[in-house]
């Protein structure tokens, strides 16, 4: 239960950060990706700001044997730079460039109640489900 409550509050902080940063707005994200147009470098400042905090936190986590609310750290084990990593990232990049939504901002933007966001999120979840079904067979 404590882990669920902390996840809710941390999710709120993450969503608030997306809203404050402007990254919830696909038009602004596309402005960053459009280097040849009226370029908006804001996204680089968002990532920079996030890394300023996340980097020392990661170093701190390495020195601890366990997190506060769980028995152990559950971190990605894969190390290889392989075809699924690159192909998946390329497909994601294509979808991201077409509309300007990546998963976090898309879910946060559900808060606006816009039908476009709901449709995008439904398709995104369907894409995740397709991957899961393909993995099974």
């Amino acid at each position, binding site marked *: 239960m404590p*882990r669920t409550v*902390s*996840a809710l*509050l941390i*999710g*709120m902080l993450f*969503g*608030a950060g*997306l*809203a*404050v*940063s*402007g*990254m*919830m707005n*696909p038009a602004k994200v*596309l402005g960053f*990706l*459009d280097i*040849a147009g*009226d*370029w*908006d*470098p804001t996204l680089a400042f968002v*990532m*920079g*700001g*996030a890394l300023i*905090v*996340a980097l020392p*936190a*990661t170093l701190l986590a390495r020195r*601890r044997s366990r*997190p506060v609310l*769980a028995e152990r750290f*559950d971190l*990605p084990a894969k190390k290889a*730079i392989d075809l699924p990593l*690159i192909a*998946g*990232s390329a*497909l*994601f*990049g*294509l*979808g*991201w*460039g077409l*509309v*300007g939504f*990546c*998963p*976090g901002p898309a*879910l*946060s933007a*559900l*808060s606006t109640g*816009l039908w476009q966001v709901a449709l995008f999120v439904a398709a995104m979840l369907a894409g*995740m489900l397709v*991957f899961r079904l393909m993995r099974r067979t």
Partner: protein
Amino acid sequence: MSNFTPLSGLAGGLMIGAAAALLLLLNGRIAGISGIAGGIFSGAGEERLWRIAFVAGLVVGPLAVAAVTGDMPVVEIAAGWPLLIVAGLLVGFGTRLGSGCTSGHGVCGLARLSPRSLAATATFMIVAGATVFVVRHVIG
């Protein structure tokens, strides 16, 4: 650079970084949104519940910001419904195949100095940039 907002970008980035830091130090998890959302389908019990709670928080967070500032954050979507469906499918499938998105690889992975996440981030940044270039300057 007429739309450049470095200060609010940095402030929001610090909040996102703090959220990633807290999820790691408290729950021992990586704040990768595609992984958290995708895991809702496979998890059970509390493993599923915390993911649903996190996603609910993502939706409530901007409403809390709107309550404080008095303005709902702007969301402008130019794409029509066919493009929204195609892009959504690509983002959902691609992030699961590639084990992460802008948050998991781009923030948490880079913070862990993971070469795998650097390769993923470079790939989706370059492909997304090329996509926007083709849509706006070649076709458009």
